[in-house]
């Protein structure tokens, strides 16, 4: 232990400028970051928000500096270091480095995160397991890779160049994985592979270096790990169809379909298409939804479309992701967007075609509902987050994500359905009468991550909460020019949904006419 403390004291004395710099950045981040939760009004607030973003980026940069410097104080690469012929015990040397990081990196970061949670209105003691899990994620994503690369490089410049090289390699791998992969499916599995692998590989490389200074073995191990991760990600991107079929098994029988869909026969929304770029066409298909059971919702995750022309020509898309399509029992009309190959589109355009849609969906079950009357200022919604409204803010249109700000501790909220009442009158008046009110609703959060924390420099998440007008009084004037507000006193409901099962359903449309008019959009 004496050796651990001796090395720790030496490193602390030697690297006090780096330590002070890191502490100043972390403290400034903790103090300034809460401006991110303020409404984006005023030049001063915007400047501070930019500064907060810069500081968020500087925190990991300070870690890079701290880890690189302290590991290279007893560099593990080379044959000229004075310490390798001194009675250093490798476990104690490694212990001293870990102690250094615990005291000067983890502890300040933990304190900063706790302070931010408290600032955001969350009691940090209630979130200790999540905070610790967040530190574990930070270890796997940032600290261990930095530590491992520092352990296989001789100095800070080489560490920096190696990190840049690794980043470029990952970028190239990501670009290569997406080349020719125009259709991206939504896969519900959360990644349980990469983080443990990174931790194991980096840990093994660090141990190998400290125990035996096997530089090239450690380097090969890390490079092999990088290649393995790249290969797995590449393989995953190339096997989306089989993954969707595995995660979304077809139903045992047609009657088991959890809801029904049919083409909207006389809808205001016509079948339209949009040309997004030279390579693809997007077709919006209006549909009627029915049969969703009370207490449940349906989320469409992926679709696969097969078009069959009268001449026998057929084109089937791979599975393609569908985002934000959730149906409640009272959902009437919706529209699905289909991406189609332009050559197939041109060929199928000439005559009515058959369209067969396979839908991969998740059945959601409603959980606890929290109902409150929105006050002026913060409102704590148990199991959800802390929200506040901006009664002075009005907007025009059918949707807005600016009138309600919510903060969540440690991760994005679980998938939640929100509804409230908008008013087209100033907030000073009493509750809006039905003639001046609109029901607005929206979804926020996601299903995919059950962990107690997501990786982030900040522990407070502020995703957009987007509301759309769902229902208005029949006698309301032109909605497109109405100024809406979310006022104190408005009712607010938040219902969490959890996944029940995943399955597939299908829909066949005969004599489907592809839209002829292509409307270019930017």
């Amino acid at each position, binding site marked *: 232990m004496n*050796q651990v403390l001796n090395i720790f004291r030496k490193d602390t004395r030697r690297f006090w400028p780096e330590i002070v710099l890191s502490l100043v950045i972390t403290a400034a981040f903790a103090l300034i970051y809460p401006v991110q939760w303020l409404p984006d009004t005023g030049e001063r607030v915007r400047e501070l928000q930019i500064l907060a973003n810069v500081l968020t980026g500087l925190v990991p940069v300070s870690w890079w500096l701290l880890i690189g410097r302290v590991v290279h104080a007893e560099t593990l690469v*080379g*044959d*000229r270091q*004075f310490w*390798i*012929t001194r*009675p250093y015990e*490798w476990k104690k040397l490694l212990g001293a480095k870990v102690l250094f990081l615990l005291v000067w990196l983890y502890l300040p970061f933990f304190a900063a995160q706790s302070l931010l949670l408290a600032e955001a209105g969350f009691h940090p003691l209630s979130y200790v397991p999540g905070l610790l899990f967040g530190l574990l994620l930070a270890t796997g994503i940032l600290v261990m890779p930095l530590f491992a690369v520092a352990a296989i490089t001789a100095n800070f410049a080489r560490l920096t160049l190696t990190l840049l090289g690794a980043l470029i390699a990952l970028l190239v791998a990501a670009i290569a994985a997406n080349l020719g992969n125009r259709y991206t499916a939504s896969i519900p599995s959360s990644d349980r592979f990469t983080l443990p692998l990174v931790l194991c590989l980096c840990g093994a490389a660090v141990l190998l270096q400290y125990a035996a200074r096997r530089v090239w073995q450690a380097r090969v191990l890390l490079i092999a790990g990088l290649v393995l991760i790249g290969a797995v990600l590449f393989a995953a991107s190339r096997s989306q169809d089989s993954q969707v079929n595995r995660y979304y098994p077809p139903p045992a029988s047609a009657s088991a379909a959890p809801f029904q869909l049919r083409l909207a026969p006389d809808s205001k929304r016509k079948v339209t298409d949009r040309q997004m770029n030279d390579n693809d066409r997007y077709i919006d298909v209006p549909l009627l939804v029915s049969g969703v059971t009370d207490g449940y919702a349906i989320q469409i995750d992926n679709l696969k479309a097969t078009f069959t022309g009268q001449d026998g020509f057929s084109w089937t898309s791979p599975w393609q992701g569908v985002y934000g399509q959730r149906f409640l029992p009272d959902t009437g009309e919706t529209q699905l967007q289909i991406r189609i190959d332009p050559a197939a589109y041109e060929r199928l355009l000439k005559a009515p075609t058959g369209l067969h849609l396979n839908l991969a969906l998740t059945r959601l079950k409603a959980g606890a509902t929290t109902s409150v009357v929105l006050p002026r200022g913060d409102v704590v919604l148990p199991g959800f987050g802390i929200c506040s409204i901006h009664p002075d803010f009005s907007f025009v249109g059918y949707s807005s994500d600016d009138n309600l700000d919510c903060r969540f501790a440690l991760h994005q909220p679980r998938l939640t359905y929100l509804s409230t009442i908008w008013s087209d009158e100033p907030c000073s008046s009493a509750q809006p009468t039905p003639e001046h009110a609109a029901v607005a609703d929206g979804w926020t959060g996601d299903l995919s991550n059950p962990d107690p924390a997501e990786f982030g420099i900040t522990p407070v998440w502020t995703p957009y909460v987007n509301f759309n007008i769902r229902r208005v009084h029949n006698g309301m004037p032109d909605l497109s020019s109405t100024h809406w507000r979310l006022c104190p006193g408005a009712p607010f409901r938040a219902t969490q949904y959890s996944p029940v099962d995943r399955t597939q359903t299908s829909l066949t449309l005969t004599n489907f006419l592809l839209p002829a008019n292509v409307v270019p959009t930017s």
Partner: protein
Amino acid sequence: MNPTIRTQDLGKRFGQTEVLREINLAVPEGAIYALVGPNGAGKTTMIKLMMNIFRPTAGHAQVLGLDTQRLAGEVFNRIGYVSENQEMPEAMTVQALLDFMRPFYPRWDRALERQLVRQFDLPLDRKLKHLSRGMRMKAAFASSLAYRPSLIVLDEPFTGLDPLVRDELIESLLERAPETTIFLSSHDLAEIESFASHVGYLEEGRMLFSEEMSVLADRFREVSITLPAPSRVPPNLPPAWLVPETADCVLRFVHSEYRGDASEREVAHLFPAARNVAWEVMPLRSIFLAIAKTGRTQNHAPQIAADDRRPEA
């Protein structure tokens, strides 16, 4: 008594380059062993093998009774290592270096530390990076001697130092000599001949010999044979006769295996018409020059290791 350092067929290869091969040596306890040889002979590689900085690709070595590949941690309490090209913690002051090193060594002698600081006139408040080369070497010595190591290993410790500093360091080493074994490398014979008790000569990765200085001095003689008429260097001279040359009627060579009467009889047998044969004791410098010249003439390491000492008629 077990030797402090022992190597057996020790070899080191970097890729295709064989840097050391079949090194066999034994350094007895209490010896001051000087490993000499020209630049690039493999001296530093050998020392790094002994200190477990490199791993051997052939053979093995023992230091203080331990296989060198197991040298780590606590055993360095008994070893002091100083190298001319060692990377020191440059940002530390001399005082900080000594303060940092002290807790590592249970046998650290504060009085000796103070004595060494005084003896070397070390500026305690100066950072190592601001010290001259000589002062840095002194600081390294002080931090390596203050715990009274059983073995001191020095890699070219005096290279580039002025004579005064060199003498100071040698003096400090000799003060430790009774209680420790010293192994040092040098490419400069003059540095070590005054105090080394044993010497090994390394050339092109091969140990040409390794023995006590006194034995070495006894073994070499400069021989001058006066022949009846001018002559060229005769062919098929014994391999132990190094750098033979003729000048007029005189044949000169260095006998590397002088054995008194036996050697004189051997010369008389090979040159029965010789008018005169003179045998002169050689200074160490001349011995090494002869060995070095032999290596260069033959373009490979000369074969004069102890086991090969068998003259051919």
